[in-house]
């Protein structure tokens, strides 16, 4: 009877080297990965993070395409990990992404969730989010930009580096330091391709123009996700969820007024409409106005503390 003896994964790496299947640099590059295969992972903890992140993602209103792409990435990583376990050839997983969409469409929220999701899958060790913009990357004199950009990359090691309004790096012309920041980010992506995930985010049209201006970028970002504007129905759903989370409830009149206001705003600011962020701002101001209204009363019931009336809606200044 043939007995298949178990070999620890790192022993399998030694055998591969001894058979001449791996040269020095490849062996150095793969040493971490082979060691990791042999180390028992805290699967329970990782699974909890993964399940919680997926639940949180699915709980977000709308974002159908985003959820579909994230499911695809998740499935792809899982299958690559299974293939790797069975010693099958694996394609390198490049997870750098471009997020295109108007403000308030959930780009930062999804990035934060992706960090945790990748941590849950064992792709990133920390899964934290480092959020930066042009001012955090671009320096004031020659050499300063590279230093600042590398510093941000260093902070994002093991997590996600989220560059908001990334298109602004490419709009200063040839002599602008923004280009140096892009070069430095690209070098960081190549040097530490498995150590962090870079997400470039910004308005749809500006990002498209930015990617066209830098032809090397498109091929380096295989995942490009479009964040569409929310519909009125979805925004109302977001408003109700946000209110419920803080133990508030809209009266039917308040709901109607809010819907009307959102429709008007969407028509006026079709280009700059700030989606869920606008809803959040309205709600924050509304809660303050309700507090002011109720503070003048001698007695307040529980129902009154919960209910937001049409009068409370801070729609005119939001």
């Amino acid at each position, binding site marked *: 009877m043939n007995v298949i003896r178990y070999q620890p994964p*790192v022993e399998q*790496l*030694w055998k591969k*080297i*001894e058979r*001449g*299947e791996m*040269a*020095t*640099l490849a*062996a*150095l*590059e793969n*040493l*971490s990965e082979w*060691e990791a295969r042999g180390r028992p992972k805290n699967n329970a903890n990782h699974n909890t993070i993964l399940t919680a992140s997926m639940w949180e993602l699915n709980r977000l209103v709308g974002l159908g395409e985003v959820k579909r792409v994230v499911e695809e990435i998740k499935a792809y990583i899982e299958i690559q990990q299974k293939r790797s376990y069975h010693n099958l050839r694996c394609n390198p997983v490049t997870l750098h992404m471009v997020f295109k969409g108007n403000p308030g469409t959930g780009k930062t929220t999804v990035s934060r969730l992706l960090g945790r999701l990748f941590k849950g899958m064992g792709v990133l*060790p920390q899964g934290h989010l480092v959020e930066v913009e042009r001012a955090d990357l671009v320096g004031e004199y020659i050499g300063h930009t*590279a230093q600042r950009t*590398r510093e941000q990359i*260093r902070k994002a*090691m093991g997590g996600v580096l989220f560059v908001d309004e990334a298109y602004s790096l490419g709009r200063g012309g040839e002599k602008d330091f923004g280009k140096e920041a892009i070069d430095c980010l690209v070098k960081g992506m190549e*040097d*530490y391709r*498995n*150590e962090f995930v870079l997400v470039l985010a910004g308005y749809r049209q500006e990002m498209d123009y930015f990617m066209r201006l830098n032809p090397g970028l498109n091929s380096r970002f295989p995942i490009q996700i479009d964040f569409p504007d929310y519909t009125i129905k979805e925004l109302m759903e977001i408003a109700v969820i946000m209110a419920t989370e803080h133990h508030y409830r809209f009266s039917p009149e308040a709901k109607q007024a809010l819907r009307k206001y959102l429709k008007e705003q969407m028509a006026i600011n079709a280009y700059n409409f700030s989606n869920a962020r606008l809803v959040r701002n309205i709600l924050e101001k509304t809660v303050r106005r309700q507090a002011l209204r109720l503070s003048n009363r001698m007695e307040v019931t529980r129902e009154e503390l919960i209910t937001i009336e049409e009068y409370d809606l801070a729609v005119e200044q939001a």
Partner: protein
Amino acid sequence: MNKNIAVVGAAKEGKTLFCINFAEFMGARSLCYTERSPSGIGRGVVSPATARELMVDPGPRCNGVVRSFAVNLLQRQPQRLALVDTASLKEQSPLPHAERKKLVATLQALREADIILHLLDLACNDPARIDFSSEANRFLSSYCLRHGKQYLVIGTKCDLLNGRKGMIRHFFSPDSKPLFISSTTREGFAQLRHLLLSKSGCFMVQ
């Protein structure tokens, strides 16, 4: 507490001479060494002068084995540093048969190490070798980052250097901070000792 310090690098970077001279600099009057070779494990004690004669290229016992030198440090709690002189990293692909086992032994030494010192010959002018070392540096720094090991890039033979430090800095990744030493003149040894002792938490050397 004992600390394993793996000294790694391509061929002719000066690893063995560095290990012997640095062990001597740290106060070792005789060198206790352990060799790990394909034929087995060997141990011995030699003086630094004999070690230089026998083990440094082109000496008779310069055979590319992984050799560990023990250095005892005197402090409140006695401490031992093991300077592990690894086999040279070779860039041929596929590797010659004899080199494969040496590479395995080197990787095993890297896994066991707490601190990895990557040596680079500052006097080297061969672009292919510099590229190879630069790539190796990238993988090693990434490996150390993942596994919580201390990593230090050391430029050797700085006595032969004429204004090339800037060039070498250019080839290394931005996060690595190269330290320049000369095993012959012992320049930079004091700085390295300070770095290693602060990393290993000891404060006095025999």
